């Protein structure tokens, strides 16, 4: 493996993110809104104004009786319903939004990095160089995967600081994250990011431009997203074992896609289908 070339390709693509506003903007705005402004704002509002919601109380009473994941026990350690609501919101309802961040990032970057190369006529220059298609592919996958996961982890850290800091005057303790976040961040998010990159390679191979890849990528990602978002909140209510199971499913999906992607590794076929 020619690591020098892999590194050069990955670095070139990572630098290209900064040069393209269409790619850069969502990567800045989405984490800021979903990771900091929204959770910080909601935690603050719940604690400041949330005392008088009857429906919330009812929901919390119900959840206290849920016998899984120690949620009920955890809830009883909070003094009042609004503090319980904050705990519930931050630790359980926030998770789906965290999946959005790497999905969005890896989708945008890989659309630019794969379809963009073809669109700008630079793929031909790459294919004339003494770099194997495997090295080319690895460099490009890393350029989308690493920033996406990095962005998710970085935002997670900022969210943790934000919600704990905002809630500190009321709660006086660190309540976020719960241990369930660990497998989510370390397993599900990387595997999901990888799957998104692979999915975008298929999409980019079919379409001619970054715009088309970006949009079609969005269309393909949305159903997956809806499915995941719909279930993840519930998922976290259960145990780490369930999350690990979902992670294994994603790992299998990644492996299958990687196998299917091997047909793009034939240089001549790649050239004929993508450069023509």
């Amino acid at each position, binding site marked *: 493996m*020619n690591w020098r*070339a892999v590194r050069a390709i990955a670095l070139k693509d990572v630098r290209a993110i900064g040069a393209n506003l269409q790619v850069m903007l969502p990567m800045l705005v989405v984490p800021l809104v979903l990771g900091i402004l929204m959770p910080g704002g909601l935690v603050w509002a719940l604690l400041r104004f949330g005392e008088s919601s009857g429906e919330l109380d009812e929901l919390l009473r119900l959840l206290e009786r849920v016998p899984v994941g120690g949620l009920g026990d955890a809830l009883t350690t909070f003094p009042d319903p609004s503090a319980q609501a904050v705990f519930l919101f931050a630790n359980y309802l926030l998770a789906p939004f965290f999946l959005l961040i790497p999905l969005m990032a890896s989708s945008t970057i890989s659309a630019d990095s794969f379809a963009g190369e073809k669109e700008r006529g630079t793929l031909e*220059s*790459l294919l*004339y160089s*003494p770099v194997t298609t495997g090295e080319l592919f690895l460099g490009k996958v890393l350029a989308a995967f690493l920033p996406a996961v990095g962005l998710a982890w970085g935002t997670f850290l900022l969210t943790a600081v934000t919600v704990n800091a905002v809630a500190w005057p009321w709660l006086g303790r660190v309540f976020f994250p719960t241990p369930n976040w660990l497998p989510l961040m370390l397993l599900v998010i990387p595997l999901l990011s990888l799957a998104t990159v692979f999915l975008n390679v298929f999409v980019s191979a079919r379409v001619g431009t970054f715009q088309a890849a970006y949009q079609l990528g969005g269309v393909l990602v949305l159903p997956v997203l809806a499915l995941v978002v719909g279930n993840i909140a519930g998922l976290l209510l259960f145990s780490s074992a369930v999350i690990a199971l979902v992670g294994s499913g994603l790992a299998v999906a990644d492996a299958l896609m990687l196998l299917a992607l091997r047909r793009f590794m034939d240089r001549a*076929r790649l050239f004929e289908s993508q450069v023509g």
Partner: protein
Amino acid sequence: MAPTVITATGVSKRFGAKQAIDGLSLSVGEGEVVGLLGPNGSGKTTMVRLLNGVLRPDAGRVTVGGLDPLEAGEEVRRLTGVLTESARFYSHMTALENLRFFAELYGVDDPARPRRLLEEVGLAEDMHRKVGTFSTGMRRRLGFAKALLHEPRVLFLDEPTSGLDPDGTRAVLAEIRRLNETRGTTVLICSHLLRQLETVCHRYLFIDSGRLIEQGTLAELKARYQKAVLLEVETGLAPDGGEYHGHPFEVVEEGGRRLAFRLEDRSQVPGLLRRIVAEADVYGARVVEQGLEELYFAIREERLP
């Protein structure tokens, strides 16, 4: 003859309904500068792609440096430097950033080489500008610099001077000659600009519809295709009709001051001149040398149905 460095044996390649290359065989010796000539769509660029292993032939075999690019692609591509019109650069990156990137891909160890090459091709002032702002000629110079990055043994240059101004053209041609003479670089040039090729190529391959229709050095081609000698005479002679003592002629300049006689071979030149001098004043005479361009059309006329 020098050992061959590029060979193609019975190569065919089809794209859909179009037979781009049709049973083509060729060979280029080590240290040769060879011109690949043919009209648009005759298969020149396809041949460059096949020789670099980015296309797979339907039939036949190619080798570069004794290696099959389909089996030892990376080794072959390390030997070759390629300039083609369709292989582009990253427009959001500067010229220097582009070359540094390709230097990494080609494993170039000298960190000063990208900068030095840019200076050599006349982009010293513009190396920190984004390639997106470059003119066609500047991109071509950059492409030429990229092809030379790793000091390749074999250069494939597809229209290396198109879009260049006269200075740029002369510099590129001089550099091709220099590389060939000092480093023994083998060069395959595809071009339409036949007059330019005459000054750098040792040998020519003529292709049409993916087939090799003729090949040879300029002298060999002249011997085969230069049928008539054209003698231009500046004279006061004003013969009637289109023939003068059995030699057909045309009036080149209005007023009958310059006549072009068509002779079967050079041995007829002295006799004809003596005859004219006996009848009229002669101010000058020269045998018009036929260049590659005339040969190109003569070859196509004779070889194509």
